[in-house]
């Protein structure tokens, strides 16, 4: 008998293609799972409107559910509620850090970053002496930073939540 837990377990093996250590469950984009005789429905929240990974993620979800024997799979983007970085789980935050990306922190929203009041600490040496290079990084969710102490450039997962 299928349960939503079973689906969740399946989805935990799907990672964000842009941060391949972060599962889409920990990223917090899975909003709704419904299983009925009519098939499987999964509602997901897009992170950023134009994020090119979203189409890929949808395809990956489809494939893994199909391979697990599900049919009539419908995967839909929901415009509400809005995804924010608050939806990332504690495990997700840990995975981001392990990957070498500074995790989102409400004390450094982008306004503070741009005005030079960064309190992001360097993922390499943990110095808080860092500066913003560009508010836009390699993907929509990240900003580009540099550590003033060890000089290492690194990425910061932009915070758009409260936590």
């Amino acid at each position, binding site marked *: 008998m299928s349960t939503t837990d079973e689906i969740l377990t399946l989805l935990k093996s799907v990672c964000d293609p842009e941060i391949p250590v972060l599962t889409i469950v920990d990223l917090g984009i899975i909003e709704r799972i419904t299983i009925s005789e009519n098939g499987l429905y999964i509602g997901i929240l897009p992170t950023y409107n134009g994020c090119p990974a979203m189409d890929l993620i949808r395809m990956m979800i489809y494939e893994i559910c199909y391979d697990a024997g599900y049919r009539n799979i419908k995967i839909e983007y929901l415009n509400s509620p809005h995804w924010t970085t608050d939806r990332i789980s504690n495990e997700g935050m840990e995975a981001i850090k392990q990957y070498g990306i500074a995790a989102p922190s409400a004390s450094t929203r982008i306004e503070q970053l741009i005005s030079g009041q960064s309190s992001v600490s360097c993922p390499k040496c943990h110095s808080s002496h860092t500066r913003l290079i560009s508010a*836009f990084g390699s993907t929509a969710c990240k900003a580009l930073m540099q550590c003033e102490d060890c000089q290492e450039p690194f990425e910061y997962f932009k915070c*758009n939540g409260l936590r």
Partner: protein
Amino acid sequence: MLKDQSPYFRFLVQLGDDALILSQRTSEWCGHGPVLEQDIALTNITLDILGQARLWYQLAVDQTQDFKDEDQLAYTRDSREMTNILLVEQPNGHWGMTVMRQYLYDTFKKMYYARLEESGQASISEIAHKCRVETTYHHQWSSEWVRRLALGTDEGNDKMQHALNTLWRYHQEITQDSEADIAMLNEGITVTPSMIREDYQQEIKTYLESCGLSIPDIRNEITGGRKGIHTEHLGYILAEMQYMQRAYPNLEW
């Protein structure tokens, strides 16, 4: 074909058209930016705005039988059926010109989406919220660059003033109401572009003057985008953007 559609549909399509054409324009910078970080920044902004166009179009196609999806809206309409404002189809020019166009667009859209977000329609309000959050971020980038370029050197200031003068007559349209905007007042949407004209003009005046620029005294506005009357530039944009679907109708990747 577009004129036979409901005001609700046309309202959504004009929002989508502004975003689609601007993103097509700014995508031309991909790989050509002045420095790598800013090339990446503008490409990120481009993707966001293209994503916004998709959201408006997706909602629009739910209102009609004549278009099946957002691709059909983007790839099968001719210039007379495109309802974007003229500002967004203007050529990129130099980096400062692109930045100035982006600044004017972001400033207006940021204010407009904030008001649209408060409007009664849930599905519109949800998209407006997402657009407002992203546009606020873009606005920080574009306004910072206007300041940096205009206050840098005399040459930079001249170029930014020239950019502002060049774009000025095309951009007045941004605060004009289309028929669809006005019709939407009866559909629970409580804001039209002209309602925020004063706030918008005040904001850009204050900011641009703080950057050592002056508001041009140019009165001959060029308008018509919302009615499908475009400058010659749009045809070239569409020719490139729509080429594949025109040559191979219904082609899929």
